[in-house]
């Protein structure tokens, strides 16, 4: 297992380098100039030049990239183009919001999706199965932001049970944190739960048709034992892959849902950085986003290795 983890981590370094280089390159190809934003419409050419010098925009692309990379390796992702706010500070302020939503969404997804899928898979062809499949299909088809709006109107605007906007840190007030992410996480988790339900159902049906299950049943093992000891563990292998995909999907979905709920998350930071052409901030957002995705994939790989010994040996 250790070898697996080390090899995966070693593979991340070149990948992050490629991501950072491509991001840096693409951001420099974006039309427009942050100097227009900062200086307004009445600046002179000299002011443009001076600000370009200050922001390091007058240097060749590779020099700019090299300087950024050197600082990034020392843990400094740079400073906002507009003020002295550190990119790492901005990321650390906003990442907990997005991770909260992602964890909440995943929690909703697993709590609803997995049991529904198991139930449907074990009762294949029954009314329970048909209803579960129908709900899962509809759930997957609903856009997150639309579900978010559906939840906000009655629960936040009419009855004011949950706040319509804003985030509370769990360190500050744990119950407030749950309330602040409840609606957004539910909106995010709807499609995840639907996807997980479908995947779980399929995996259960598949596993239940395997020879070793038939053998276990033929040996006279109780149904519960067959289901929970043999079927579920094997069905979990494709499920873990799906959960990994869903976490990545939820991170992306959170960017939109944050807007609907006015949450100052990673997505909001990304959108604001793009809107204001704050290149250092955009670069930091993309790199940290890539790191999070890579970390999620690493965890999935490790879990995969845990439930599937073949992966470890290979």
């Amino acid at each position: 297992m250790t070898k697996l983890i080390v090899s995966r981590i070693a593979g991340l370094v070149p990948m992050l380098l490629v991501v950072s280089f491509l991001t840096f390159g693409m951001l420099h190809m974006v039309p427009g100039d942050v100097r227009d934003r900062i200086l307004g419409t009445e600046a002179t050419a000299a002011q443009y030049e001076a600000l370009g010098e200050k922001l390091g925009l007058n240097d060749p692309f590779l020099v700019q990239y090299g300087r950024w990379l050197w600082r990034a390796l020392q843990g400094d992702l740079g400073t906002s183009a507009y003020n002295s706010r550190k990119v790492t500070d901005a990321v650390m302020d906003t990442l907990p919001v997005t991770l909260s939503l992602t964890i909440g969404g995943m929690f909703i997804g697993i709590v609803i999706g997995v049991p529904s899928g198991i139930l449907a898979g074990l009762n294949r062809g029954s009314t329970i199965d048909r209803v579960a499949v129908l709900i899962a299909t509809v759930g997957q088809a609903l856009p997150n932001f639309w579900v978010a709006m559906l939840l906000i109107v009655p629960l936040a605007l009419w009855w004011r049970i949950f706040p319509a906007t804003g985030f509370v840190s769990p360190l500050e007030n744990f119950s407030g944190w749950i309330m602040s992410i409840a609606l957004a996480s539910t909106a995010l988790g709807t499609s995840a739960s639907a996807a997980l339900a479908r995947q779980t159902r399929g995996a259960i049906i598949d596993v239940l048709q395997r020879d070793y299950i038939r053998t276990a049943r033929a040996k006279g093992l109780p149904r519960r034992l067959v289901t929970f000891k043999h079927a579920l563990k094997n069905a979990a292998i494709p499920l873990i892959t799906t959960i990994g995909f869903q976490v990545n999907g939820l991170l992306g979905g959170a960017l939109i849902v944050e807007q609907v709920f006015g949450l100052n998350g990673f997505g909001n930071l990304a959108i604001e950085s793009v809107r204001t052409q704050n290149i250092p901030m955009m670069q930091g957002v993309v790199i940290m986003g890539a790191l999070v995705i890579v970390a999620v994939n690493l965890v999935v790989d490790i879990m995969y290795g845990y439930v599937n010994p073949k992966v470890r040996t290979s």
Partner: protein
Amino acid sequence: MLPLRSLLLPLAMLLAGCSPPHNPQIDEHVIKLATGTPLQTFDPHLADSGSSFSTYLTLVYDGLVEANPDSHWRPLPGLARTWRWLNETTIEFELIQGVTFTDGAPFDANVAKANIDRMLKLAGPRVNTVATIKETEVIDNFTFRIHLHRTDPTLLGNLTGPTGMMISPAAFEDESLDLRPVGSGPWRYDAANSTLGDVHRFVPRENYHGDANPSGAPLQIHVLENARARLNALISGQVNIAILSAVEAGPAKDRGFAIQRRANRWYGITYLDRRGELVPELADPRVRRAIGFAIDRKAITDAVFFGYAKPTGQPMFDDLGQDPELDTYYRYDPDHARRLLQSAGVERLSFVVPIISTDSPLYEAVQHYLRQVGIDIRLEVVERGSLGALARTRTYPVNTLTYPTFGPDSRHPAIWGTNAVFNPFNVHGPRIDALAEEAGTSLDEALRARNYRDYYHIIVKDAYSTVILQLEDLVAYDADVLDKVRIGYVTPILRHMTVKQGVGSP
């Protein structure tokens, strides 16, 4: 609905560790604004004069003079009690006494001089607007003079912006000044309890020297990029005033919130290629005028902006030199537009118009109207924020940048003047240059008004730009809680807003 609510409420309380549900009534004596504008910098001498300035900096800083919402040219007293022109190039300010900054440092003429000197030295985004300043002079502790290179009637108006804001000199070298302001304004920024990009908290200053924040209310600014989220925050009681767009104004009004509106920005097509290098037909004023007559501004205003805009053919707002006649100069008359095109010998005309995506509905409507008279404009969506850079180049024959409410003193060198920043084709306009030059170097208000009027008659009638409408900034607020709500530039004037007596009192 009640049974469902009664089911959900205990469930929510259970989820929340039995805490009571969110209760927006608890702290209604706080002014809570929802805005889409993030803080850029708290250092006024490095700030532009846009919405970030008017939203945040005017709370914590005082200027020598204060912006007058009724006239850009006639500022109100600020840290300067009075001022007078000693001659064409010298203005003397008498400063108020007893002013202290949040760090305890006193304000006096030496501080005023140090601030103006710092602003000139740092050469921030707005320094060009006060480029006429030659030097500053301290006469006594509370008398201060500014000497100019030449007469500048716009000086006072421009000093209402970031260039005239006063910082405690002790904070000049503080690298964190841009995030931790040290001003003398009616509020102190509570950095410890604020989160950049999320919620900014401001604490009222006791014994504030001026008449701002008369109800002594604390203030919170919630940054919500999405206008719908701002409306939701208002409806749910999380904020009591919100800056909205036209789409959200109707629902807010329907729910009983008061609406304030003010035209602050004009939209339209500015012809960069008035010499016809890319599109020869645009060199003929009749063709440009035809475009003006072909557009039904009222219909566009109603359909695209739900009536929250002023259909007009002129870029001038209600201020010095404005001529209401120009509002209706381009009445909707497609037949007249066709005749003008015919007289110019133009049967079909086609050119590219760069727009940003958020302006698509507006320009798609314009496209429709122009097609009716045989003009085919091809809309090309460009990156947000790139129109300014494009207006400096010869890439497109026209530009669709929007412009805020300022007179020709600042617009002429930016848009229409021979040496304007956005005149990449070097189109000469000797008549408007002369008018602007004379108006820009005279303290005679009657002359300035006359020149402005003549200037805008040329801009409109020769169709330097085809103005379509003046968009209104909108705020919706809880009139049971807030009083004296007025809109300045994009944002409500928070300094003079009050919380109604008795609201939120224990």
